[in-house]
């Protein structure tokens, strides 16, 4: 199959890559670029553990053909760590015991970040809706939802509402 060169900006860094037609964004992020926070739970769009942000939108990297995102800006949890933009959320996850085995956690983090970027003040229903594509088998969803609610409360407190 014909190879092609694609260019991506991943976590702020420009990457030029030779890719084959059937490669997914997940293959490139995990295996070529070693962003191991991008987990592979199902490779069929069912679990949300591979969630990343592409040009500001939440995407399942396992269902995204790499050639479709040529020229895009991609953010993984590693990128969010660099920018310290989710420290408050991470603290709340720890505080509320919102992770056990931790395998779904990076995908959860990214999905929540995408939610808060587009809607800084979501209600419980909106939080549940935003996490509907991310499966957790250990903790149950309650501590995760409560962690997000706490961050939302903190944020609105800080902005003086």
């Amino acid at each position: 199959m014909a190879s092609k060169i694609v260019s991506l900006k991943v976590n702020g860094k420009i990457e030029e890559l030779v890719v084959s037609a059937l490669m997914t964004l997940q293959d490139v992020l995990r295996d070529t670029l070693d962003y191991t926070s991008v987990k592979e739970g199902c490779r069929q769009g069912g679990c949300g553990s591979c969630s990343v942000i592409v040009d500001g939108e939440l995407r399942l990297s396992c269902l995204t053909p790499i050639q479709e995102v040529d020229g895009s800006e991609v953010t993984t949890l590693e990128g969010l760590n660099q920018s310290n933009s989710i420290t408050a959320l991470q603290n709340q996850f720890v505080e509320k015991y919102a992770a056990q085995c931790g395998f779904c956690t990076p995908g959860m983090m990214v999905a929540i970040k995408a939610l808060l970027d587009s809607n800084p003040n979501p209600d419980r229903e909106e939080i549940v809706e935003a996490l509907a594509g991310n499966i957790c088998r250990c903790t149950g969803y309650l501590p995760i939802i409560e962690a997000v609610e706490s961050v939302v409360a903190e944020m609105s407190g800080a902005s003086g509402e």
Partner: protein
Amino acid sequence: MAIKDLKIVGQPVRLRDLDTHVTGETVYYEDVRVPRLLHLKMHRSTYSHAKILNIDTAEAKSSPGVVCVLTHEDLPGKKKFNALAGVGVGPEDESVLAFEKVRWKGESVVAVIAETPAQAEAAAAKVKVDYEELPVVLGIDEALKDGAPVITAHWPNNHYIFPENHRAAQVRFGDVEKAFAEADHIVEDSYETQPIEQAPIETNGCIAVPVGENRITVYSNTQGLQFSLDTTAGILDIPTSKLRFIGGTVGGGFGGKVDMQVEPITTLAAMRTGRPVKFKYTREEEMRVSSSRSAWRVVIKDGVMNDGRIIARKITTYQDSGAYLRFSSYGGMKHCGHMPGPYTIPNVWIDSIVVFTNRAPSNAMRGFGVMAGSFALEVQMDTIAETIGMDPWELRLINAYREGDMKSHQKEVEDAGMVETILTAAKLAGKQLPEAFQNMSSFDQKAG
């Protein structure tokens, strides 16, 4: 030790790796980076029960990217294993790669190792196996019928034979038949549970890396690292000192990662190729191939007095082990230890039978041997309450074990807390109990 002296129970305890879970820095087996990694895919049985007539790997071997193809003939050591053999469970009945017969649809037959997962998968599909189909047994009743097709020669009646030639793991305590004759009521019922997939988000897998001097380091997400190491050494016929297993970081297990199916074959592949090899179940394999919780049938007959005392309980349990033993005899024995529930009953009879069928082998899942038992027992308790016209809370409080009682498996109750647990639950549920019941404790004498 009294409950008030406990330092951890009742306190939240923070996971040690929680801080790296939330940053994505926790290293699962698959996050280990090794150069020149090969990938293993399995050619699996397409029949539930069939004789293997011929295995043809020629086309697979010449398929693009293929480095190595392994069949049962390549297994250097033990041809059959059971992961618990080291603690005395047997006979060993399962092979890492099938020979002579396949006993369930999905059984491993040929391992193909290639440069990429896609190449390994394409080549595995090119393996040709000639089968002669055999009659299939898919349920407990079918398996135990006279003249049923025999799945494994060790067990001519399709049930496990426990030590001393017993058909079942057994408990015999008092005399149930005599007590049934004296009972005011007999309450009988049968309960069934279905197989359940544990479905961890991270599927079963490992990476085996040659590190020189014929030594292999294996990164695995197994839930039983020492059993995986032991099993692998036995199948490869090498001392355990040649192997280093690294694990403990498991992306969800729930009992679904104790099969020891991936490590032995991946380690053999790494030894044969001299290169690191990864074997990771696809989601489909995780659902269809990795073992599920067993299906159980629990048949209960109780003798009950008008005042609520259960004076006899007779239980026959059937556990569908699927095609191989794995941990089922252990689960069946644990089941015996759990039954007849958290109650003191003076006459108990238990037979816990492990049945073989041509289904995917089952194995542990949270509360192995216990959950199906508790489900059956507690529905049975409600049925008893209804039958004799007694409040179900009161029935349980009357029968709950007390400190010092003798359990049916000949162990004295220590640190009893059942009565207090029920009373706390009643309070939380807003259940009003008569004063005599509110004043009960694990340290008082039972009503009878």
